[in-house]
């Protein structure tokens, strides 16, 4: 069965629209929620006015400058901006298989479940980001280290397993409390598979002292691309999984070649 084109378009434009709006918000960086603030002097110790301070004091200062709540808020905003486009297909699936009066509520519950998984992961991720910034302030070393882990993870069969699971669109109950529970749980599990596939990629831009918006954009493109790949057998894959880019290049090439030979209908 198929949803009407109007409903499909509405889902697409709402998800893309919200994502774009939140991207704008991200770029404005209100209250510095998207960046880790450091003292403008080389070390935290000098910043405190004394020659030596304990690590606990340094952490306290870092947390004063970057309250955990605002960091988590930044994390949540980033997840919404980067991940909503990936939820278009599961939301279409939920709309199609739900009673009309439940469609919006189920979609909302699914998104909430999905975001819950990412926010739970965000607690640990934010701690890692703050910790690495404490030990390596304004340094590229954490980003390089995490980038290496990301490269290994990216090729691993474990990541492929998470990506495959993300393609499993559930058949949901239609009636009563079991339906509400199932769709929320579906959202949580879809989030878990997404975190499993993308956690280390998401860390990378946050650890860059500079240029992390550009990195975030690249990571978003990469994550949407790998989401477009179909499930594959579990093994090491040494490719970038840039399917979106490949499709765009292939279509452009085909169009170019055909325009020379025939009119591309």
């Amino acid at each position, binding site marked *: 069965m198929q949803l009407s084109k109007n409903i499909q378009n509405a889902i697409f434009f709402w998800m893309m629209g919200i994502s774009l709006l939140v991207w704008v918000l991200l770029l404005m960086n209100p209250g510095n929620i998207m960046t880790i603030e450091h003292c403008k002097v080389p070390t935290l110790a000098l910043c405190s006015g004394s020659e030596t301070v304990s690590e606990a004091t340094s952490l306290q200062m870092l947390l004063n400058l970057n309250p955990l709540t605002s960091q988590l808020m930044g994390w949540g905003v980033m997840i919404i901006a980067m991940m909503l486009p990936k939820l278009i297909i599961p939301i279409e699936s939920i709309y199609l298989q739900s009673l*009309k009066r439940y469609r919006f509520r189920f979609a909302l519950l699914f998104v909430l479940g999905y975001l819950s998984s990412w926010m739970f992961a965000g607690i640990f991720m934010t701690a890692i980001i703050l910790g690495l910034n404490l030990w390596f302030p304004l340094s590229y070393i954490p980003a390089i280290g995490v980038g290496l882990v990301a490269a290994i993870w990216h090729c691993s069969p474990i990541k492929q397993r998470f990506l495959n699971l993300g393609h499993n669109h559930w*058949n949901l109950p239609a009636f009563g409390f079991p339906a509400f529970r199932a769709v929320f749980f579906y959202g949580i599990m879809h989030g878990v598979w997404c975190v499993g596939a993308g956690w280390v990629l998401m860390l990378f831009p946050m650890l860059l002292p500079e240029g992390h918006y550009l990195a975030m954009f690249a990571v978003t493109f990469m994550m949407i691309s790998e989401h477009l790949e179909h499930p594959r057998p579990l093994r090491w894959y040494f490719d970038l999984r840039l399917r979106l880019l490949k499709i765009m290049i292939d279509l452009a090439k085909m169009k170019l070649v055909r325009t020379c030979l025939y009119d591309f209908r």
Partner: protein
Amino acid sequence: MIFLRKNVWNNGGTFDNTNLLWYAKAVGVMKSKPISDPTSWWFYATIHDEYLISLPREPGLDYLRWKNIASLPQDKLAPLPPKSQIDMFWKQCTHSSWFFLPWHRGYLAAIENILRDIITKELGGPSDWALPYWNYLKVKENQNQLPPAFKQPLLEGKPNPLFVPERYGNDFSDLNDKCQGEISFSIYGGPTNNINGAIENNPHGFGHDAIGSNNGTQDGIMGHVPTAALDPIFYLHHCNIDRMWAAWNQHGNNNPTDSKWLTSFEARKPFAMPLDKAGTTWHYISKDVTSTNIIYYGGVPYQFTYDDLSLFSDAKTKVLAPTDALTLRLDRLNPNLDSTKITKKRVNPNAELVGASGSPLQLNSGKTETKVKLDTSSWGKVGKSLLGASATKLPNEVYLQLEGVKGTAEVNILSVFVNHELIEKVSLFGLNVASVSDGHHGGAGLTFNINITHLIDKLHLDGKFDVNDLDIQIETKRPLQVGGKITIERIGVYRSKQ
């Protein structure tokens, strides 16, 4: 030049049909080449799918691994081609998908050209040779059986390249071409990337099932996706499916205009066929093969057609033209209607769930029963549409959808009964591959759409429309083998506004 594809049953389906004789000889040449050659029979079979480097999900199906199939020449199956060619070409087949028809059209065009090259350049045959098709729906002419040329073990004193010992079925009675009466591609060829179209189910899946059914201990190779294309009858079966699609278009039915279909954007792999021994690649998309005038085959236009483009072949099929069927339906629902005002049925897919089953249903051998609960308010909308049916306010159509059909018992047919009336039969061809979580369906299983509008109209006219649920029975054609399992995650009922 326009190549003409002809009926394999010309000259009785024997080797007196020279078109078929050339096919056999060229298949023999392809079979003599090793799998490392992209123009070999074995390489072309892997393009569909394979159990050569992939393994069956169930150990009980190990006999389908290519190394265990007795009739395959194992020396031709090694060494393997380079990994880049495996990644590019192997395991592309698109089943349970709206890409099923376009992908297979390109696949046939590619192998037809490889075969013609062999026939003209190596065997000195005719340059206008084209693939034959097997129209098993010509029941009156007794063409609903395997052509004799495929049954004889020898040809000119040597092993017959068309003979495959792992074919066990000969019951073609379930095949029909009712699909040809559909007017919307979303029903005919599939609505999206993961739902079977009507033609994919019957006759396509039923054809695989009929030839590939079990001999008591093992399934035939045509019954499973990763082994089917090893059998030379496979290409003639698909040629007939392609002929039916061409006929369906010829009779005024349209292919999708959705850019996702035209650009094959959601396909699991880019459609790619090797054109020669070097592996020169033909990339194509659905848009290239929407007609039998392929617009870009390896850089040049390529045209073919069929000697028979009749919409229906099966004398048993009783399908009215869409406008007539609609007029008849409206006349039944509203006898006072001025049927001269009815013009053409609109095709505007817009589905809404009106009922669903509860927990997943595990099937047993024979019949298994369940109920689909109907939602009062949504079901009421169907009732209203039936009550208010007119030439301008077309009544809803109602569909039963088997969702998430998963399992291991692949070569089987399910008969679906609603309120004890047989509604439809569905083939489980592709069940194993669709149920594997790391396979290209992501473990989603198969999904089947069944139009139950006539049954709902009857309930309405009999004054029995106000029901809370529908009784569903699912019956397996063959007993499940030991360890064989089939589950249906949900059965949904949908209304479709016209």
